[in-house]
């Protein structure tokens, strides 16, 4: 992939428009849900209390909005990156967007008028036995998840079709020519973003099958056709689906980095044998760690618990050894062009590894015994999300709007990116500290002894809000011109 080739070409204008809407809709949702997160931290700090009923509804909406929001923003970025080399259907992307918006609206309706507050993990039987909301609200929330899953199907199927067509078959789209013939030169091997798009699409489709295996019995239960769904089964199913979905967003946004960092490093990121091996292995490895969420369900078969532990460790190999090391190698001695996009991408690389350490520690079974469902858990996934996926997605939105509008970044944008990093790191460090002090997660009210941590985190949270407001403002200012540019085409 030529790192100097412009993103907009003669044919991908419509796809770029769809991609921009994915990024803006996804990150816009993230921003709104982020404000809800600020509210939760203020409540935890004892600064601004909300009723438990509202706290848990906010908590539910926060998670249910963030995870798909980050995933779809990342899909938008990946579609834009891949569209320079493969013919994507803008129609499919818009259909996917309609399905995603429908799903999100249903969830909002379940939570706001419906008082649904089962958490984004919607762990059966809580959605049907909440006591402060009706069974109908649970059904509406699950219906929202179903529409979101359908949206994922449409986007993944469309991406997969595009990459396999562009490469002349699934084998080339998965870079098997490199994987199985490492010594033979492959000058036209699939570029990393195309390979990654193929991998994440396959994972996404398989993941939705799991999601349906969770949702369908529950719809039948609500309709009265099934009396009871086994609690261990539903826990395994929802966590396999949910963990994979959150994990997937990291990989999708990483694909965006593979396509964008080279532009600032002025070096191509090639599909070498480690890259081909890492990304092909992810198709399997991503499905192994889920049982680390079930370590404290002692009735879970021991074999699955061990799989959860080893599977979690295994995920560190492709992520760190190939992608993170690869990113650092790409920029080392490269004469890197510093811009808000570069800074955010490198912050994301940092956060992915740091969050990974926190996660892998918690994936050790005896450690999990004293960390599970404490604030350590939100700590590690907020690191992955804020200083990982979100950083990558914001970087790309910033990059794309700047490139299309022809705007040059000024020093304030770079400062804002660094401040975002500082704010995010401070926020998650206090989460980790809370977890180390056994503060439980998902509590509407924190004991006085715990409130100090959240209070101390508030300045860092505020820093993130200010930084994002600045970067978001720059993006919005360029959006009109960037949009119009996609209609004009390359000059």
């Amino acid at each position, binding site marked *: 992939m030529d790192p100097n080739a412009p993103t907009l070409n003669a044919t991908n204008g419509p796809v770029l428009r769809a991609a921009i809407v994915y990024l803006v809709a996804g990150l816009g949702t993230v921003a709104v849900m982020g404000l809800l997160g600020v509210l939760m931290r203020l409540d935890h700090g004892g600064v601004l209390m909300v009723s438990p009923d509202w706290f848990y509804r906010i908590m539910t909406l926060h998670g249910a909005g963030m995870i798909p929001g980050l995933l779809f923003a990342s899909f938008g970025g990946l579609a834009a990156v891949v569209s320079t080399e493969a013919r994507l259907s803008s129609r499919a992307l818009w259909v996917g967007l309609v399905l995603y918006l429908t799903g999100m609206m249903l969830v909002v309706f379940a939570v706001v008028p419906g008082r649904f507050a089962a958490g984004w993990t919607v762990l059966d039987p*809580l959605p049907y036995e909440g006591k402060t909301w009706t069974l109908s609200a649970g059904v509406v929330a699950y219906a929202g998840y179903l529409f979101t899953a359908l949206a994922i199907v449409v986007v993944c199927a469309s991406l997969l079709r595009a990459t396999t067509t562009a490469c002349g078959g699934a084998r080339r789209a998965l870079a098997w020519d490199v994987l199985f013939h490492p010594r033979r030169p492959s000058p036209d091997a699939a570029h990393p973003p195309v390979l990654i798009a193929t991998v994440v699409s396959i994972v996404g489709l398989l993941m939705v099958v799991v999601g349906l295996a969770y949702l369908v019995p529950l719809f039948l239960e609500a309709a009265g056709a099934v009396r009871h769904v086994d609690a261990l089964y539903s826990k395994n199913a929802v966590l396999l689906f949910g963990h994979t979905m959150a994990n997937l967003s990291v990989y999708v946004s990483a694909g965006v980095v593979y396509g964008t960092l080279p532009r600032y490093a002025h070096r191509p990121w090639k599909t070498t044998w480690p890259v081909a091996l890492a990304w092909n292995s992810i198709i399997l490895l991503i499905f192994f760690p889920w049982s680390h969420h079930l370590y*404290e369900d002692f009735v879970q078969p021991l074999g699955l618990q061990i799989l959860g*532990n080893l599977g979690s*460790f295994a995920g560190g190999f492709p992520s760190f050894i190939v992608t993170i090391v690869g990113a650092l190698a790409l920029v080392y001695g490269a004469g890197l062009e510093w811009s808000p996009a570069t800074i955010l991408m490198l912050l994301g690389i940092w956060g992915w590894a740091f969050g990974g350490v926190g996660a892998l520690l918690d994936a050790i079974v005896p450690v999990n*015994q*004293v960390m599970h469902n*404490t604030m350590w858990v939100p700590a590690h996934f907020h690191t992955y999300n804020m200083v990982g996926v979100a950083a990558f997605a914001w970087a790309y939105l910033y990059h794309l709007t700047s490139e299309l509008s022809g705007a040059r970044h000024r020093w304030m944008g770079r400062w804002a990116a660094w401040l975002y990093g500082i704010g995010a790191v401070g926020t998650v460090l206090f989460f980790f500290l809370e*977890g180390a002090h056994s503060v439980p997660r998902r509590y509407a009210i924190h004991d006085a002894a715990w409130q100090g941590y959240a209070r101390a985190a508030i300045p860092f949270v505020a820093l993130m809000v200010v930084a994002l407001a600045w970067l978001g403002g720059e993006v919005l200012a360029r959006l009109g011109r960037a949009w119009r540019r996609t209609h004009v085409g390359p000059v």
Partner: protein
Amino acid sequence: MNPNGVNPLAVWWILLALGAAWTVVWGWVLLHAGPGCSYEATAPTVRRLRRILFVVFLVTFGAVFAASLRAYPYFRFRSRSLGSPVATVQVQASQWSWDLSKTAVPMGVPVEFAVTSQDVNHGLAIYAPDGRLLTQVQAMPGYTNRLVYRFAAPGTYTLRCLEYCGVFHHIMVATLTVQ
């Protein structure tokens, strides 16, 4: 790893130590991101680094996993390392209270908690008097999870719900006396 419980603060310090080391490496690369060398020149070093990391990860993860097995919290592991339970507490979780068959247990001997739920998933978490989480297990409807623990010191321990279960999840608290 202590079979009776890992110290969470130790985990925090390990995170900080590894995190600091990583930050130094990352920062060093960023400081050297100016023009310096060709991409091709770094390739052999990167290859060697990857091979080293692969082996280091494999060995470290393997060793950690092997060491962790001793401290697995499941019934067959803890009853082997701590001994067969001497006393049993039946725990029934429901929205939003704990129903315990006993509220006092002896110290220094293995005690079993047979935990189940009447409605949704809950989580039994036992906190020491100083506020530290010692051990936990999920309370699932239709299943009984058996948790074995040996209390090292007497006092009033707090039981909290650690699996989100609805609007009063955060006040689903009970006390346990260890004597």
